[in-house]
Structure formats: structure tokens, C-alpha cells
């Protein structure tokens, strides 16, 4: 029993090294490829998820859901559940903005009106507000009430928004309901550059 087995082992030992080298060579190609595919897949999946959260958030926001209420904020958190966002923190943020345009007719008779400007009317942030600021930031610090409404947006020069006009021209009395979502992509950090996934829906 022993001798044939012995022979095999001896011959095999010399060639087993080849297999290891071959495997190592192949791995050099395969492992990054597979990890890359996994990372890309995760990111693509994540970007679809993030876009979906933005779309759902904008869709509810435009229909009048008050996201300053904690119950409605929890709906957003649940929509974004696999992404790990919480109402006031976690790994994600949803920024809701209502933006309008003030024309001459609207501004008539109002001193210091932000005439012919796009202005921020409402801003609600759900999630980890430190992760990212809005692309449609107001020109300065504005005062918000409990529902996120901007005080004196017609006259407060800080309420002017410059980020949207390049994307969307608004007429007087038109309102754009904007949902921005941002989630860092941290699953396989070596293969992703850590900028995260950002999506915006304008309803």
C-alpha cells in the first residue's frame, strides 16, 4: 500500500509548486477583477438605491408630506434602511428644499424684495447633516421655523439660491421641490474613492 502512494507524493511535490505559482499568477488577475466587480456592483446598486430614495423623498415632498414631523422622517429612514441612515445621524443624509422665483409682479410694493432671484422657501434636513451640504445652498444663514420655512424669503438677501438657476429656469409662482440624497460608499474602501453617492431629484 505504501510504495505506490509514496511514489505519487514524491512526483507530485515537484509539480505542486507549479500549481501554486500558477494560482498566484492567476489570482493577481482574478482577485482584483472580482473585487472590482463586487465594488462596482455594490456602488451601482447603491447608486440605484440612493436615486430611489431621492425620487421617493421628492415624490412625497411634492405631495405635501411634512418632513419636519418625526413620523414622516421615520418613513424616510425606513426607505433608506439598508443604507444606514437615522433621523439625526447615521451614514446618509436627505436634504429637501423648496425653491421659487420672485418676479416683478410678486415683488410689487415690497421694499428690499429679492426681485428676479431664485430663493429658498423651505429647507428640511433628515439624517446626518454633517455629511454633505446642499448644492442649492442659500447665500447666507437664514432663519427657519419649526417646519423648515424660511422667514422673510422675499426680503432676506441670504435666502437667495444660486445653484439651481443653471439647471432650471423658474417663472414667478413656480415652486421646485428638490430632494438631494447623499450616502458615503464605504463597503470596500480600497476600490472606491470614498466620495460617496449623491443623487438629486427635482419635482
Amino acid at each position: 500500500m505504501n510504495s505506490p502512494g509514496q511514489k505519487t507524493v514524491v512526483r507530485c511535490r515537484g509539480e505542486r509548486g507549479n500549481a501554486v505559482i500558477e494560482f498566484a499568477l492567476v489570482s493577481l488577475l482574478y482577485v482584483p477583477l472580482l473585487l472590482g466587480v463586487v465594488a462596482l456592483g455594490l456602488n451601482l446598486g447603491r447608486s440605484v438605491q440612493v436615486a430611489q430614495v431621492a425620487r421617493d423623498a421628492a415624490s412625497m415632498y411634492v405631495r405635501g408630506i411634512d418632513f419636519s414631523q418625526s413620523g414622516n422622517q421615520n418613513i424616510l429612514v425606513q426607505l433608506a434602511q439598508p443604507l444606514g441612515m437615522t433621523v439625526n445621524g447615521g451614514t446618509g443624509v436627505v436634504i429637501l428644499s423648496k425653491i421659487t422665483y420672485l418676479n416683478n409682479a410678486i415683488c410689487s410694493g415690497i421694499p428690499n424684495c429679492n426681485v428676479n432671484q431664485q430663493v429658498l422657501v423651505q429647507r428640511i434636513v433628515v439624517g446626518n447633516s454633517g455629511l454633505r451640504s446642499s448644492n442649492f445652498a442659500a447665500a447666507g444663514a437664514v432663519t427657519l421655523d419649526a417646519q423648515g420655512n424660511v422667514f422673510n424669503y422675499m426680503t432676506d438677501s441670504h435666502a437667495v439660491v444660486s445653484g439651481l438657476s443653471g439647471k432650471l429656469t423658474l417663472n414667478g409662482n413656480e415652486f421646485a421641490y428638490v430632494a438631494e440624497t447623499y450616502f458615503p460608499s464605504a463597503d470596500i474602501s480600497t476600490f472606491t474613492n470614498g466620495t460617496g453617492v449623491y443623487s438629486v431629484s427635482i419635482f
Partner: protein
Amino acid sequence: MRVNQARHHLDKPGERGVILLLSSLTLLFMIPIIGLAIDAGTVYAVKARVQSAADGAALSAARSLSRGLDLSSQQSAATDTAIRWFHANIPNGWMNVGTVSDPTITFPSAPPKTTIVNVAVTLNAPTYFMRILNINSVTINAIGQATRRDVNIVMVIDRSGSLYQSGSCAAVQSAASQFISSFVNGRDRLGMVTFGTDYRIDFAPAMNFATAGPPNMVTMIGQLYCYGYTNAAAAYWTAYQQLVTIGDQGALNVILFFTDGMPNTLTFDIAPDGTDNRLPPKTLATPSTINYGGYNNANPTPCRDSVGKTYPTAGWNPSSFKGVISFYGGIYLKDAPSFPASQSVDAQKIGNAQGDYGNCVFDQQFNNSSTIYTGGSPSRAIAGPGFMPFFDVAYLPEEDLFRNKTGTGYGGGSPYAPVNRYPGSFPAAYRNKIRVDDIGTGSGTLGVSDTITNAGVNALDYAAQNARDDSITRNLNVVTYTIGLGNAPNGVDNTLLERVANDPDANNYNSAKPSGLYVYAPTTSQLNQAFSRIASDVLRISK
């Protein structure tokens, strides 16, 4: 043994390097498969974005149907809006999609009382690996559809004298005009009820609110003249009755109520169902612990006009008053001939002792404006001039003309605002009735917290809650929005206006009933903003 044999078989000298070869062969299959996954992922991501853009375009188009006075200009405005919104969501070159072409906007036939906007999109998503197979792009189709419900809105607009005094009348006109421009002439119905001392349907709800007449809503708003007291409950209920008359169950029914003060005026008469809610005449001098310089102990006075000529005249029935009452403003005839809208000095309209109209003031003027009347315990001061109802009226009925309760809460129990009643020391006919000679818990500022004003507050509170419940049973589900302008000396009652709207912040908020919104505008510069916020909110829920 089996293991060894297997190894033996694998490690034949002729098979050396086969792993490398196999791997290379495998790659030939793997790379296209991985590529397919990447391409599919890209297409999926683009598809999600396209769908989102189509939805956003359709909803924005539905919101913008108000621009233009006829169907074709409204549809072209909506098409323009949809295209702008679509491109805002998918810029050219996003994810290498190249130039994004305009979506196709159509307005398919819709069920009654609705408008449908259909946004059809075709976009080519680029491929990266499938190009090997000569598939350079994948065509993505998406359809976004939004339905806009027609809206019936009755605006209830305060035109009381405090707006004139604060210089706010023009701002109200401007804000109200902006508000109506958010709605669709030809589909939405808009109407307007205004109130000062009287209340009046200035424009019965109609779909051609911007093109009718004149007069139409725009011209009526332009003629608003601010004068008189604040007869809010009657105006609110009249507005609600307009929505009941339309009876539009499929549409969104809205009341927009604007005021800058306390509802200090009430209307009394025989109710439509025959209940006698007229003001009882004063028949004897009432003993009182509160003494306004002794005047409240005066004997009843006959009805007289401004030059002291006494009545009765023909048709005058001294057994009851059909009147509009205000603690400060006294009593006016309810059914006086109306002036044309252009002469909307409403105190005249409801019979301010103008002999030409044969009407009568039931009150006595309290004296001139320099006099301050003091008295009572604790001492309170009332600044003149004033028309004191207690010269002519015994007490307030428990219900106004529209059966809104003045001294009882909705559903029974205590009313929202306290009312004082005559104590047991008064003659039996007066006992436990609502006082008309009492300045209540206020500081003596006329029109604030006196019992008649509080009764007016209660009547408005009752009217709003009654209308809300009644509209649910009629399947009209009326939503009330309120705006308070805070620049009048006595301000507005924020809690009351939250209750009227069933605002989520109201102290009696009921989420099972249609929720409205109360917006407070501290000054006229925020008024436009307040109306605008409500217009955008109405348009959101009309979808």
C-alpha cells in the same frame, strides 16, 4: 487510495500549465459576463433616473396648468414646464447619455374633475461592453403621469377698518391677486366672500373667475375697501355654504380665511330652519356691578337715527332685532339695501341711520372720541367713541343666524373663549344669559376679550368645526387654510386660527379630519409669502 489515484491523474506531466490556460479561456467568458452586468447596471441606473425625471416633469406640469386663461395656452405652459423640469433632472451628457431630447407631453382624456398630464420619454443609455456585439446603446422608455384634481376655493377676506388703519388694504389686494393666479381659469372654481361689519358674497364661485364680467375675482379684489368691524363667523359659514351648493365631491374643496383681527361682530336673525336667533330687545334697566359711568343703567332707548329722530317707522318691529352686533360697533340692521361694490362703505350698506334708506341705528353713540369711561371693580377704562349694544339689547342669543353657538363649545361643554353671563341677582329673564354689557377679562381694550367679541370668537370656532364635520358627511372634505396678519393693534388669535384650520399644531387637532394650515404674517411684507405658501400647498394636495 482513491485520493492518491486522483492526484496521480491530475498531475500528469502533460497537464502542467493548464490552470493558466483554463483561466485565460475562462476570462473570455467572464469578461463579457461581467461587462453585461456592468452594462445592465448602467442601464438600470439610467432607467431609474429617467423615470424619476418623467415623474417630476409630469407633476410640475400639473402644477403649472394655471398659467394662461384658456385651455391651449394652459397646455402649452404645462408643456414648457414639463420640458424644463425634465432637463433639470437629466442634464445633457449625464452618465454619457449624450444629448437628451425633449419629452412628449400629452393630455389624455381624464375622468370628470381631473386633468391628466402624460410625459413620455425616450432616451438611449450607453453601453460599454455590449459594443463588442455592436450594441452601442439601449433605448429606454418611461412614462410619467400626474393627475390634477380640480380645485374649488372660496376666499374669505377680511376688509375691516383695522386694515385701513394699518395701511394694509393694498397689500391684501396684491397678495389675493397673486393667490388666484395660481389656479386654472376654466377648470378650478374660485369665489370670494368678504367681511367687515357685514358679510357679502363678492364673487360666487365660478370657473371663469379671471375672465367673467367684469366683475370677476380680479376686479372685485381691486375694489376692496377696508372699513368696519370683523363679522368673521357669518362670512366663514357663508363661504362654506357656497361649497355645499356646488357639491363637488370629486374636487378638492378649500376655504381660505384671511383676517387681521378678532372676530368681534356677530349676526343674529331667524335662522334658515326657523329657529329664532334674533337679538332680544332690552325691556328694563339692568342692575349691574359693572358701571360704565352709569350708562348701562339707562332705560331702554327707542330706535333713532343719527340726528336723533326716533322711530318706529313702517316695518319696524320693536319685539326683535335682526341685527349685526359688535361690542364696539353697536348694532346695525342686517337687511338694509346693499350699495354697489364700488361703494363698499359697509357700515352704510347695512343701515347706518341714513334716512334715505329708512334704516335705523339701535345704538346710542357713547360720546366723542376724547372721552374715556371708567368704572367697575376692578376699574376698567374704555376709550370712545363707542356704540354700546346694552342700551338696546338684553342679552346675546346662544346661537347666531347660522346656528353657530356663541357661548358653548362645539360638541357641548365650555366654549373656546370664556363668556360672562348675568348672575342670579339679575331679573329672571336675564339670569344666566350671555351679557352684552361686559368687557370680560380684557384690559378694557374694545374688541378684545369682551364678552361679545368672545362670543364672536366662539361662533367662528364653532362654524369651522361644524363645517368640517358637515363636509365629511357630504363627502366634500373641505380643507380650511387660515392666514393671520399681525400688524393691527390687537393682533390675531393664533390659537383660534389654528383651530379653524385644523392645523397640526392646533390644541384640538384631529388627524382624522381634513388638515389645513395656519400661516402667520407679522407684517404686510410677509403677506404675499403667506398666500403663496398656501397656494403651493393647495396645489400639492390637489394631486
